[in-house]
């Protein structure tokens, strides 16, 4: 069953335009970017946030809907991907899980299905890494995924996570330590 888009748009006010990281030289640089290229990173960050709290792709969908709604709030030339991460995080921590029950589409919906099935090897390795990431605290995992996997700078990650750069560095360091222990118990 699908519901109207207006029904799944967030009720709680957020301000996706508040975060405008690292201005670039060309104020229209984002126009040259293909938003599609950010989808894998958005899905990865959504997975790190959701764990077992809902479908990460639904969180990505919510994020894109919010971004479309607030497109005027984006400052051209700034880090588009970080802007999308900020919207996603805000959405996640502002009641997205409540809306999970009302999400559009379903697991059986044809448009929700990938256009190719992942291989068995991918599936196993993916599950192994997800299980390891699940084993570390949320705030460590978020910092690790943003910096070590998705390649955000410490400064950008600090703005996305709304904390100090030093805190991000500390969290990444601790996350690496925890992950190392999980992946290599003999260590």
């Amino acid at each position, binding site marked *: 069953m699908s519901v109207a888009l207006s029904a799944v748009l967030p009720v709680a006010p957020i301000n996706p335009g508040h975060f405008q990281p690292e201005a670039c030289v060309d104020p229209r640089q984002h126009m040259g970017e293909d938003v599609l290229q950010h989808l894998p990173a958005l899905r990865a960050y959504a997975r790190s946030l959701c764990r077992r709290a809902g479908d990460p792709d639904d969180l990505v969908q919510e994020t894109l809907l919010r971004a479309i709604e607030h497109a005027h709030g984006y400052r051209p030339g700034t880090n588009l991907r970080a802007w999308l991460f900020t919207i996603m995080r805000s959405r996640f921590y502002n009641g997205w899980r409540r809306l999970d029950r009302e999400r559009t589409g379903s697991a059986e919906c044809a448009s929700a*299905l990938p256009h190719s099935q992942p291989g068995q090897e991918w599936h196993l390795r993916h599950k192994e890494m997800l299980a390891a990431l699940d084993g570390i605290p949320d705030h460590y995992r978020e910092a690790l995924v943003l910096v070590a996997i998705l390649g955000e700078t410490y400064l950008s990650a600090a703005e996305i996570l709304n904390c100090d750069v030093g805190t991000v560095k500390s969290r990444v360091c601790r996350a690496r330590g925890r992950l*190392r222990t999980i992946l290599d118990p003999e*260590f």
Partner: protein
Amino acid sequence: MKSTRPQEAESDQIMNGHLEQWKRLMEREAVPKRLRELASALREALTAAHGPPRP
């Protein structure tokens, strides 16, 4: 003795390999059609809000 710096460095290297591999696999994973359509819609919305791309 629990660990030494060389052991830690080696273990870090292994973990970095795990993370990098996971990242590459994530990038290769197929994206659902609904998300690709929304990404295209976002691009159009950004263009509508901020003007056309520079040549």
